């Protein structure tokens, strides 16, 4: 894989700048990656194939994705700005369905796993907004315990 495909899919990345931070892999997906899990694919598929927190309904809605992240200690918040001592995530939606999730780094930038492609670091959430992932629907945060 190379950056050309990523830039074709998300043209704003070319303008804002970004970096590829992992090789492509299918071992985990963006929903897991946002929660810091790089071993499992999370998805509430109705075929009951992929991992989903057992206490959360397997339905593809923003509400169930919020509940899934709540099992890990995240709570809904208002802004994407970096807050020392907190880790933030963003859930994207398109046509009312969750499509993607990103996690904020200590630099204030965001890390995203792009489907089966690579992880990237991108400066803002808007750089991935568009026809593929739609737009950010919800922001959540949890305390990291170590303000920095």
């Amino acid at each position, binding site marked *: 894989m190379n950056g050309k495909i990523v830039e074709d899919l998300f043209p704003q990345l070319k303008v804002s700048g970004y970096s590829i931070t992992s090789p492509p892999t299918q071992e985990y997906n963006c929903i897991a990656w946002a929660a810091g899990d790089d071993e499992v694919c999370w998805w509430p598929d109705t075929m009951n194939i992929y991992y989903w927190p057992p206490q959360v309904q397997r339905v593809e809605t923003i509400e169930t994705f919020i509940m899934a992240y709540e099992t890990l200690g995240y709570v809904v918040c208002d802004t994407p700005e970096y807050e020392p001592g907190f880790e933030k995530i963003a859930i994207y939606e398109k046509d009312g369905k969750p499509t993607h999730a990103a996690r904020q780094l200590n630099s204030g930038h965001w890390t995203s796993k792009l489907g*089966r492609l690579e992880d990237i670091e991108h400066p803002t959430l808007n750089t991935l907004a568009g026809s593929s992932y739609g737009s950010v629907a919800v922001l959540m945060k949890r305390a990291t315990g170590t303000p920095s």
Partner: protein
Amino acid sequence: MTYANVGALRVPKQSSKDLSAMLIDTGAMGGESALIQKEYERSVDHYLFPFTTRWANPITKFLSLKKEWEDSTAHLSSITEIAMHPVYQQIIGMGPIAIPLILDEMSKNPNHWFWALKAISGENPVLPEHRGRIKQMTEDWLQWGKKQGYIK
């Protein structure tokens, strides 16, 4: 001239590649000639093996659909979007004949084939603790394929 059956067609056994080899053997081909020859080969291939004929072979059909599906969904995170992609649905529509092709493919290159396998076979051999772990899910399906006789 001898003929071979390709799908419903009978085609001359001497292919464009044979002709190309004959020309190269003469040492008479330069760069432009080679380019023209390559295009000639492509046109002959299109004539001898039209798209419809290629799809008469399930292996060719599967590989063609697989490539299109992989290219179209690489960036997607939604498993539902990945599995509901029209091309993936066409693979499911191939029915049981696709199972050994999928198992062979996933033994070399693990991917999101679990939905298709479950939809076609009606089974799910993945252990609950392996759910979401691609390598282990793949291994569970390959073991199932061996038990069912799809893999020797």
